[in-house]
């Protein structure tokens, strides 16, 4: 009796260690991201796609559905939009329990700042060339988003923009709006 149960118990104990390792790994990976958002986020997601679906349906109807024998321009978009709408409703009704969303945290504000800096780059690029906006972008991302020291920020920003200049303008002669 004891001889048969012993190896089984031992095996069970060993298997547990492996399970522990896997759980640890999953936990590690999860720790790096913001916590999961609640059901509200799930519903919000569903509402956004629902809006898209309904808008698609309305607009597609406007383009004319035609008939099956002579499909109008709106037929296919309408069919797809119907699918989007139906699935969105399913998401709103059934999809609240899922754990696949993330909360917006304070670092999300940094992401927002990053996006604004990109918009700034796009806006300034045709006006004053790529060098200065790129430099500013690098500084914003390195210093304010990345928390690097001013020294490192300055060095890396200048080196990067210089490298881009050397690559795009000197080596590849690709037309970019530029100052120099």
């Amino acid at each position, binding site marked *: 009796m004891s001889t048969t149960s012993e190896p089984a118990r031992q095996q069970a104990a060993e298997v547990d260690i492996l399970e522990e390792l896997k759980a640890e790994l999953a936990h590690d990976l999860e720790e790096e991201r913001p916590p999961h958002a609640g059901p509200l986020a799930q519903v919000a997601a569903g509402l956004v796609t629902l809006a898209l679906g309904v808008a698609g349906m309305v607009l597609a109807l406007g383009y004319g559905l035609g008939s099956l024998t002579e499909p109008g321009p709106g037929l296919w978009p309408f069919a797809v939009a119907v699918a989007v709408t139906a699935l969105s409703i399913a998401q709103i009704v059934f999809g609240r329990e899922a754990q696949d969303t993330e909360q917006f945290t304070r670092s999300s504000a940094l992401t927002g700042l990053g996006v604004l800096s990109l918009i700034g780059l796009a806006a300034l690029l045709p006006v004053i060339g790529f060098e200065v906006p790129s430099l500013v972008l690098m500084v914003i991302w390195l210093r304010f988003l*990345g*928390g690097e*020291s001013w*020294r490192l920020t300055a060095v890396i920003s200048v080196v990067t923009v210089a490298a881009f200049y050397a690559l795009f303008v000197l080596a590849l002669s690709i037309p970019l709006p530029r100052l120099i």
Partner: protein
Amino acid sequence: MTIIVGYLDTPEGRAALETGIAEAALRDLPLVVVNSPRRGAPVDVDMLAPEQVSAIVDRATDHGVRVEVRQPLHGDSLAETLESVAREVDASLVVIGLRHRSPVGKLILGSTAQRILLDASVPVLAVKADR
């Protein structure tokens, strides 16, 4: 009351550790070894491997010193992290290793040691590596 050693696996760091151990033995205080890599990258040379940590623990206990090794991550300022650990463990002394830098080196790379020396709220013992 504890003694803190700011530790890196360099000659200066090891010198600091020896001095820290000696001081801790002398004053009969526990030792807190702080090994702080920078936050961000998945790998950092400053981070000690588990074997290195146990080697430090062995070295200290060999001299009869109670030791704890901490590995907090630092963001912008290592000095700040050291300072906060110092406050937390009620340090009476901070021991750091000092590396000789040329004037240009001090300019470009800045000096963590200088920050620690200037900002610390307790006495700082700066140790050079044995030549």
